């Protein structure tokens, strides 16, 4: 009987893969659960004798086995959506069983770690630096330089902390990597440990990812002997978005409130429990095994553009026809991603806005679709790449409502440590309401005789917008971390690109 391969990714599970698996088993097939290919609009994806079938339900099983199913999509690896990608970090996606050590070794697993053991710490750091690998969590800090700092620090105990607190809406690459190729992350952490002399690693994984928690724990047990004496432990988050910020994450690991720490001291020198610590995102660490393979560093460094080297696993999400994971070299334009690869909106309506980089990323107007995927190009356009999430909105989106939500989210998730974020977010949400109301009258307090320096004139909509811009400047410059510091990006980009949604004159008219 044929071997049937069904994606084990949480997206497939949420789309009903368990019933499909049961139906194939009852039909006498051997079912293998493999990692997801990343073509989410086609899930649950099933592969029988090399041929893929899309959006399979239990009712399709007999037609598929009988060869008469109309859901066939041909060989999955040759699907243009897959074959046009440059997959390095996600090279195994769809092809291997996540918890099979056999599959992992057969596809080049542990080659990076074995070579790293031969060449030694200094050469490892040198190769990571020369590959140009930058932190994939959002900040884009060069990984090699961070490792160099930790390697040079003198301490009896050092840590590798993997940031898997992927809270940004529109991102799911960390989840897919952990669920689909957990050994790659483990290998990357082991290489990092070798490079800096760390004894212990933690993966801070969010509680919203139940499947990833189970898979990673199982993988760590299986791989324990491979990475010894280095040890890795999974720590489950507790629903705080701000713990994706590295210092807040360290506090959370220590068993404290997830409040942000002021920097300096850098976590590289005084991180977890005050010891030198590498904090890297899942995708950064999972890219390391490839970089450490023979010739891997040079190949990685030859991809991309400018100072953005290598590939980025881009996540196409929201109202997009072909959503999923698209890994490609830096430099691809946003228009190509949304219109050509993503196929436009799922609703078939025109694209109104695209938010790149999660809830703290700017809303980008379609007239900026020539923007190349590059850290510096986005920074230059007052936007950010962040963790590579691309969330598409159609023309039903109310951008004033999205701006208000940005503040509401910041208020709900602020750790409370610094004033611009804690108070600014609440005041910002109120301000958006007042702009929509068209300004406001002076309130009772402002009219009180004691407040003789306060203006009692009615505040116009334009004055409220100026106030909002002031507030955003304070939040940008005065917040301790990116939560308060970057919330102005979605707000200001929304008001600049779609002023009519705020009751203001359209762009170009003043």
């Amino acid at each position: 009987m044929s071997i049937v391969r069904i994606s084990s990714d949480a997206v497939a599970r949420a789309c009903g893969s368990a019933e499909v698996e049961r139906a194939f088993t009852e039909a006498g097939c051997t079912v293998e659960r493999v990692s997801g290919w990343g073509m989410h609009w086609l899930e649950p994806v099933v592969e029988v004798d090399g041929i893929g079938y899309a959006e399979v339900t239990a009712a399709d099983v007999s037609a598929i086995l009988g060869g008469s199913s109309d859901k066939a999509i041909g060989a999955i690896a040759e699907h243009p959506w897959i074959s046009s990608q440059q997959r390095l970090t996600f090279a195994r996606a769809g092809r291997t069983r996540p918890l099979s050590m056999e599959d992992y070794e057969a596809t080049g697993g542990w080659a990076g770690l074995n070579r790293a053991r031969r060449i030694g710490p200094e050469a490892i750091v040198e190769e990571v630096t020369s590959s140009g690998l930058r932190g994939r969590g959002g900040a884009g800090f060069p990984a090699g330089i961070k490792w160099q700092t930790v390697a040079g620090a003198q301490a009896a105990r050092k840590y590798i902390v993997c940031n898997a607190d992927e809270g940004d809406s529109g991102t799911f690459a960390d989840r897919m990597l952990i669920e689909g190729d957990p050994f790659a992350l483990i290998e990357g952490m082991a290489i990092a440990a070798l490079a800096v002399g760390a004894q212990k690693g933690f993966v801070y994984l969010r509680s919203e990812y139940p499947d990833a928690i189970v898979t990673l724990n199982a993988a760590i047990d299986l791989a324990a002997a491979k990475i010894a004496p280095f040890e890795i432990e999974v720590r489950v988050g507790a629903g705080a978005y701000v713990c994706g910020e590295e210092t807040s994450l360290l506090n959370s690991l220590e068993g404290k409130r997830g409040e942000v720490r002021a920097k300096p001291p850098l976590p590289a020198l005084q991180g977890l429990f005050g010891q030198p610590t590498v904090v890297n995102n899942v995708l950064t660490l999972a890219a390391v095994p490839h970089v450490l393979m023979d010739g891997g560093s040079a190949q990685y460094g030859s991809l991309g553009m400018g100072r953005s080297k290598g590939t980025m696993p881009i996540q196409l999400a929201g109202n997009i026809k072909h959503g999923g994971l698209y890994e490609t070299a830096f430099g691809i334009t946003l228009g190509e991603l949304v219109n050509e690869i993503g196929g436009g909106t799922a609703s078939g309506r025109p694209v109104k806005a695209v938010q790149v980089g999660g809830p703290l990323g700017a809303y980008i107007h379609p007239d900026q679709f020539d923007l190349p995927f590059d850290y510096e190009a986005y920074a230059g356009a007052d936007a950010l790449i962040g963790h590579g999430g691309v969330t598409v909105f159609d023309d039903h989106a109310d951008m004033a409502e999205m701006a208000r939500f940005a503040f509401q989210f910041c208020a709900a998730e602020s750790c409370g440590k610094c004033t611009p974020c804690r108070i600014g977010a609440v005041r910002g949400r109120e301000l958006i309401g007042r702009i929509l109301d068209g300004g406001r009258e002076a309130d009772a307090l402002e009219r009180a005789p004691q407040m003789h320096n306060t203006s009692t004139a009615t505040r116009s909509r334009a004055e409220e917008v100026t106030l909002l811009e002031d507030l955003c400047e304070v939040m940008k410059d005065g917040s301790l971390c990116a939560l308060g510091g970057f919330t102005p990006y979605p707000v200001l980009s929304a008001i600049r690109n779609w002023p009519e949604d705020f009751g203001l004159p359209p762009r170009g008219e003043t």
Partner: protein
Amino acid sequence: MTQEGRIAEICEIHAGREGPLLPILHDVQAELGCVDAAAEMQIANALNISRAEVRGVVSFYHDFSAEPDPRPVVQICRAEACKARGVEALMPSASAAAGERVRIDTVYCLGLCSVGPNARIGDDLHARLNGERLTRLIENA
């Protein structure tokens, strides 16, 4: 086993770990449905920290609650990607279906952002929800 005995056991299991508080709180929350004042006091004593420190941590994280809530919970993602796919339009009928019997929690992102709107009940995930499917999930929760 008494609540006290069970908490003592949980503290014992995690005692040797670096930074044991969050793992302890997760286990206590999962077993008792909350981390109440008595539990806070006992955990504080076991870890030799003040009750205020434990309280501060319990109140900081969305996953921990100070009081039990026996109702079934349906978590609905209402972050940007699910908003773009129309979750807000489903909320009025979802709230109506939930009534007092089911608790609806807003969650910011289940990481299924390409196939929303999404919901989670226990460890079960549900994607591509429309009004009818979401209402049925809530009614069966």
